[in-house]
């Protein structure tokens, strides 16, 4: 009886405070600003297989850093479990990787494709491989085309495809080049042609079966229709028509879940003034087309969309007018693909616009950082962490120890597709699902890498933790 009274008293106290909308941790999650700042402009960010974050900045959107005699091309590795700025190690690079594309090779190293040749914006045709074990960059084979604003996409067989970007002479590349780690000589395959002029940083999603879907959208423009690319043949097929310009909007391959792993791609926001709208395409049907999804709470250009382990999508940052901070953009949205609904994900402290990045971290929180609208050479150094509602109990207390913990796997070293394995864990509640999430690679309002594959869960695929049997669920790490 005493306990019940105490709870009632607390509830009364809370409701008295709830006079205006506030962030309720167990409903919307929370946004926290870290006590230290990012020492370089985080143009792009990639989660590494050791849990650290690779930041590739190059000349940091500052032409002075790309001028003869004053070259400054920088990158950093950040350990997000650190408590002060010493967790961030900055290093200098030998060429300008500003506006490159990054995807992970199947051995866990990162391939960094292209960059900036000069600030009239011509493309760099060099590529480098970053090794997380040594924190060193090694230049790899050159591409034929220079690529400034190229998308790098890991394919089902572990190769990495580079598309679009401005070439050495400033035109838009209309070729695909594919990097093959097992092609020790040339590295890159002979370029194959693209039958249309893509926008910069085209939004690409690898599908089950190995084909690559281009949403029709990119950074700086949209095409009249989406396209499908088959890496096996180099062939392109026109796909659904697009309905509006989603320049600098985001796209996400929605969670691929058992038993049927239906591939659906969702576009968020984009354009200026930016749209609140989303649209979704189901690529399992014979003639796919875009249909409207729920609206976000505000129009977002230069936003980021992040897949959470529970399959929901965090849509955060951006603004209605490009590079013009606004208050509604600081309030994030959370898309639930199961109910096809949009909910609130709380309010961040900072606007995150052009050159902002966001990543799912290994502790299931989300990193949000960067933004340098307007003034070149200056940027927002504050780092924010979004802690989703799933890490709060019903009393709004952060769940720290009482969460599932993986203690081991039934294999060591790399694992192949289609191989069953078992997971050892401790948990006070039964395990209901297991998912693989590929570490993200975030830049220019897109994530080239993130994808979520459900291994088990739900009524039809109860968890005896089995790997997906199909090879196209590639490269999760």
């Amino acid at each position, binding site marked *: 009886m005493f306990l019940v009274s105490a709870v009632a008293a607390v509830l009364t106290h809370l409701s008295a405070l709830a006079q205006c909308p506030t962030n309720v941790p167990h409903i919307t999650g929370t946004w926290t600003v870290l006590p230290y700042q990012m020492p370089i402009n985080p143009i792009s960010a990639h989660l590494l297989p050791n849990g650290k974050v690779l930041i590739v900045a190059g000349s940091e959107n500052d032409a002075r850093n790309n001028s003869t005699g004053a070259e400054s091309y920088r990158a950093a590795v950040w350990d997000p479990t650190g408590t002060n700025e010493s967790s961030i190690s900055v290093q200098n690079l030998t060429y300008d990787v500003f506006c490159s594309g990054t995807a992970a090779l199947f051995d866990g190293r990162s391939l960094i494709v292209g960059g900036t040749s000069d600030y009239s914006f011509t493309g760099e045709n060099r590529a480098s491989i970053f090794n997380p074990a040594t924190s060193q960059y090694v230049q790899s084979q050159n591409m034929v085309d220079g690529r400034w604003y190229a998308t790098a996409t890991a394919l089902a067989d572990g190769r990495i495809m580079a598309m679009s970007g401005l070439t050495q002479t400033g035109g838009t590349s209309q070729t695909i080049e594919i990097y093959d780690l097992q092609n020790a000589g040339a590295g890159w395959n002979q370029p194959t042609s693209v039958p249309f002029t893509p926008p910069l940083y085209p939004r690409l999603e690898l599908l089950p079966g190995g084909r690559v879907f281009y949403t029709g959208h990119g950074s700086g*423009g949209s095409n009249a229709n989406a396209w499908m690319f088959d890496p096996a043949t180099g062939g392109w097929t026109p796909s659904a028509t697009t309905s509006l310009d989603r320049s*600098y909007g985001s796209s996400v391959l929605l969670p691929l879940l058992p038993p049927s792993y239906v591939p659906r791609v969702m576009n968020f926001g984009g354009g200026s003034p930016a749209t609140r709208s989303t649209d979704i395409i189901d690529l399992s049907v014979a003639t796919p087309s875009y249909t409207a999804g729920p609206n976000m709470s505000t129009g977002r250009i230069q936003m980021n969309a992040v897949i959470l382990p529970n399959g929901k999508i965090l849509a955060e940052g951006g603004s209605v007018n490009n590079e013009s901070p606004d208050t509604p953009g600081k309030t994030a949205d959370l898309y639930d693909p199961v109910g096809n609904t949009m909910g609130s994900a709380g309010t961040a402290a900072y606007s995150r616009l052009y050159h902002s990045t966001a990543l799912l971290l290994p502790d*299931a929180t989300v990193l949000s950082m960067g933004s340098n609208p307007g003034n070149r050479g200056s940027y927002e150094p504050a780092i924010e962490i979004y802690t989703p509602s799933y890490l709060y109990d019903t009393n709004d207390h952060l769940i720290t120890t009482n969460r*599932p913990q993986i203690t081991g796997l039934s294999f060591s070293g790399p694992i192949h597709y289609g191989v069953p394995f078992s997971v050892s864990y401790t948990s006070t509640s039964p395990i209901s699902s297991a998912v693989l999430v590929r570490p993200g690679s975030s830049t220019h309002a897109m994530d080239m890498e993130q994808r979520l594959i459900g291994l088990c869960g739900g009524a039809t695929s109860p968890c005896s933790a089995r790997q997906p049997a199909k090879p196209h669920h590639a490269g*999760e790490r």
Partner: protein
Amino acid sequence: MLFLLDSAGVPSKAWFIQLTPNSYSSVPPSGTISAPSKDMTIPAGSAINFGSGTTASEYSWVFPGGTPATSTAQNQNVTFGVSGTYTISLTISDATGNSDPSPPTRTITVLPTSPDFSITVGPAAQEVVPGGSTTYTVTVTPLSGFTGTVNLSVGSESGFPTGITSGGFSPASISTGGSSSTLTMKTTTSTVPYALSLTITGTSGTISHTASTTLLVNLAPPTGLTATAGDAQVSLSWPASVGANGYHVKRATIDGGPYETFACPSGTSVVDSGLINGTTYYYTVSAAYTGGPDAGGESANSVQASATPQGVTAPPAPPTGLNTRSNKPGTIDLQWVQSPTPGVTSNGVYRRLMNGGIYPPTPTYTITPANTSFRDSHVSRGVSYCYKVTAINANGQSVPSNESCASTK
């Protein structure tokens, strides 16, 4: 990253897993038959050891005429009891499930125990247009000491349809030693499209063997399709194809298709109306025959023709050849080639920041009267900008010109 989620939806921290594609290949496997190392000729009743030198997840042998008739073993002993010529194939699959797209084969010739012959015909099919003729080569191979003359004849299951005739064999019979003869098949211009299965019979005394091939009579696609643009319509015409009694007229909005059929006229012209002015449409036409119960067919598509309907009220064509350059500090000069459409009254200039900017919905500048050059002096020094130009007349604004970018001095 592997996450476990509990029944309340609380995720674990991630455990990193490296998934490698080593067991996966997008390259299909290629199998080899190592034994026998070449095609073989054996007497009926004897056996051959078949084997593959390729390591694979699965083997699928097919032994027509053999016992066993199939096998999934890497190596298999097979007995052939009946004379004939058999094509043995091996299809291997890898661990990913890819199968060999071009399975290797061996040809096994099984000889009769008494004198005999075999007969073959090639190619497996010939295609002609109505009125055309074609030839096949018939080859007789003596087996087990066969001597004698093989007489040749050609037929089909229910006789030849109207218009198809045999031009006979040259020579009409094949004598000892093994040789070939040429069969000619003829059609008339009234022959309807048809797939005719031909049976060639070789007879020598009491011994008779047959071989089969196919004669395809197919309409030729129309040649010289023309497409003429009008206001919201395109007029199409083409010369008649021999033997056709109708045409399938097809349209696409993408160069090269895919096409969809929108008209099935019996004549050689059609008007495609209700189109959108300013859009380029791509056309092709195929010849068709829809006659008797056994006939039917459609030719391949003709060469593509295209047309862009233009209305009297259409907006102008865009300016072309836009060039930008910073000749004077703090300014950018634009030059372009004016729209060829008469009556252009002004030009719209659209500008964006090159690095990350996007174009505004309405012109940054509107230039009246229309001109072919412009100096933009509202730009910052040392910054890169991109431009597009439109043409405006009483009917509206054109689509934009090419994009051109420059850095300000």
